[in-house]
């Protein structure tokens, strides 16, 4: 794992009661900012990251030295233009890039491991709300996020209905589906089946369940792409060989690609964090929080919504995104919706998909003019 000394953090002193019943306090929340907060403090955007993201959305991640996960969309002159907007992005609690998570030390000085409390999307959002106080921002201009980030957008608006002028939930759902719970469980079981996992207490024994975590990542990675995208990029192409080798090496490029994705992932991500964050996603059911009526989650908000889905996303397909639109329409809220054409699957929101990038840019620019 990387050293994370140079990470910006706030320490949240105020006790936070978690959904599981436990209360945490004096815990760190790691964050990064992009752009400059203007004098009126009306240009702030809170970006929420997805399952394996972190606070380094743009530019170079100082920990991994790789490009930030949302570099296509966020940065100077980009769709979320940091020449204009002040963007805050925090590592979720439960994560492993400096925020309070299972790799942190408990009062006895040992890593929490699976003694860390189970957290929820609601807990993540409540923890991040402290950033508004920290930056003395009364009202955000927008909250934006894709996938699990989109779930946080929905929960944020529900919890703090008048704290953002606009909201862009992307490729997400208000209620995690059985298929998605199943896929997350596959990943968790893969980690737990690794002999080195040791019931979650691998860190104190200086072990890493990297095989299990890599397989979890490989399986998940497939779900972020589309069949068509995979076929076009890889087809049945062979990996640095002219013919099949009649063995179990990576004969096919797709195998090699997945193995590579798995191997680089274990260098930057903690296996227990993967368990905790996928669990938080599984537990997310905003509809249930409001007794089966999703509209009630948004009853008191004045935010202007823009919901975006992608044609080839089978993980958070259009109908699930549309359910959010329907719930908002049912109570006459301001909501726009577009399904973007893309073969790049769920990952479309992270990639260079011009229609998507233009839509976000235009929505933000025209909405910002209106509040001026």
């Amino acid at each position, binding site marked *: 794992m990387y050293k994370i000394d140079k990470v910006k953090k706030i320490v949240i002193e105020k006790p936070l009661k978690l959904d599981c019943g436990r209360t945490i306090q004096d815990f760190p929340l790691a964050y990064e900012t992009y752009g400059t907060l203007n004098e009126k403090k009306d240009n702030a955007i809170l970006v929420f990251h997805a399952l394996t993201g972190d606070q380094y959305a743009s530019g170079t991640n100082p920990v991994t030295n790789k490009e930030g996960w949302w570099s296509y969309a966020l940065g100077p002159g980009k769709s979320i233009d940091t020449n204009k907007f002040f963007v805050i992005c925090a590592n979720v609690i439960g994560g492993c890039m400096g925020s309070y998570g299972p790799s942190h030390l408990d009062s006895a000085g040992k890593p929490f491991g699976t003694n860390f409390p189970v957290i929820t999307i609601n807990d993540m959002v409540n923890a991040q709300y402290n950033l508004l106080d920290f930056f003395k921002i009364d009202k955000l201009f927008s909250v934006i996020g894709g996938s699990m980030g989109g779930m946080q957008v929905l929960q944020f608006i529900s919890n703090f209905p008048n704290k953002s002028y606009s909201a862009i939930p992307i490729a997400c759902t208000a209620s995690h589906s059985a298929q998605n719970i199943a896929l997350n469980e596959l990943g968790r079981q893969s980690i737990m089946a690794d002999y080195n996992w040791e019931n979650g207490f691998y860190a104190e024994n200086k072990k890493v369940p990297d095989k299990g975590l890599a397989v979890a990542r490989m399986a998940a990675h497939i779900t972020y792409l589309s069949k068509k995208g995979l076929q076009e990029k890889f087809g049945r192409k062979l990996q640095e060989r002219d013919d099949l080798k009649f063995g179990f090496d990576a004969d096919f490029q797709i195998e090699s690609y997945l193995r590579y994705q798995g191997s680089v992932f274990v260098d930057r991500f903690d296996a227990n964090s993967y368990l905790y964050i996928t669990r938080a996603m599984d537990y997310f059911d905003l509809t249930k929080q409001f007794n089966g009526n999703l509209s009630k989650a948004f009853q008191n908000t004045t935010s202007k919504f823009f919901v975006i889905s992608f044609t080839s996303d089978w993980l958070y397909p259009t109908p699930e995104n549309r359910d959010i*639109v329907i719930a908002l329409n*049912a109570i*006459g809220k301001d*909501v*726009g919706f*577009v*399904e973007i054409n893309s073969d790049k699957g769920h990952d479309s929101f992270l990639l260079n998909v011009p229609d998507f990038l*233009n839509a976000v840019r*235009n929505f933000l620019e*025209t909405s910002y003019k209106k509040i001026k």
Partner: protein
Amino acid sequence: MKKEFFKISELLEKDSKILDVGCGDGELMKYISENITEDVRGLEISKDNIQKCIAKGLTVIEGDAEKDLQQFPDSSYDFVILSQTLQAFLDPEKVINELLRVGRKAIVTIPNFGHWKVRLNLLFKGTMPITENLPNEWYNTPNLHMCTIKDFVNYCNRRKIKIDCANLSYVNFFSELGIFIIEK
């Protein structure tokens, strides 16, 4: 802007709540939002058009009027606009019912198949009419249910839908386009 859109705008009330069904590239919505009310939304099926609407700062939902109007509550808009697309639906009657359910009033425009040019075209040339409002050939027209102004007025009368059209026979002969306010 199209003359039709000015005519439609004249029928709208200031600061009312408006839904433009099949709002296209948002030309009419933009005019409405700048001159009549900010409370205007669109429903549009074409992704390209939606991008144009977003660039204009308009609130648009991607969807198909034949199935996606059902998500809007009863009487949730003062006016629902449907401009020259009624004839292109598989089930225009269902769409009319939905317009009247969602809007207090609906503004519907139809290309008039009873216009004298259309009639002459068919009478003398013996081919399907092609005019400014009906530019397509029979094999590629999106129009499935063409009607005349008279047909539409008769329909509304039969269904007890309020509609106003004086000098019906005259209008039916000389108007290329019918613009109506209808309500339940």
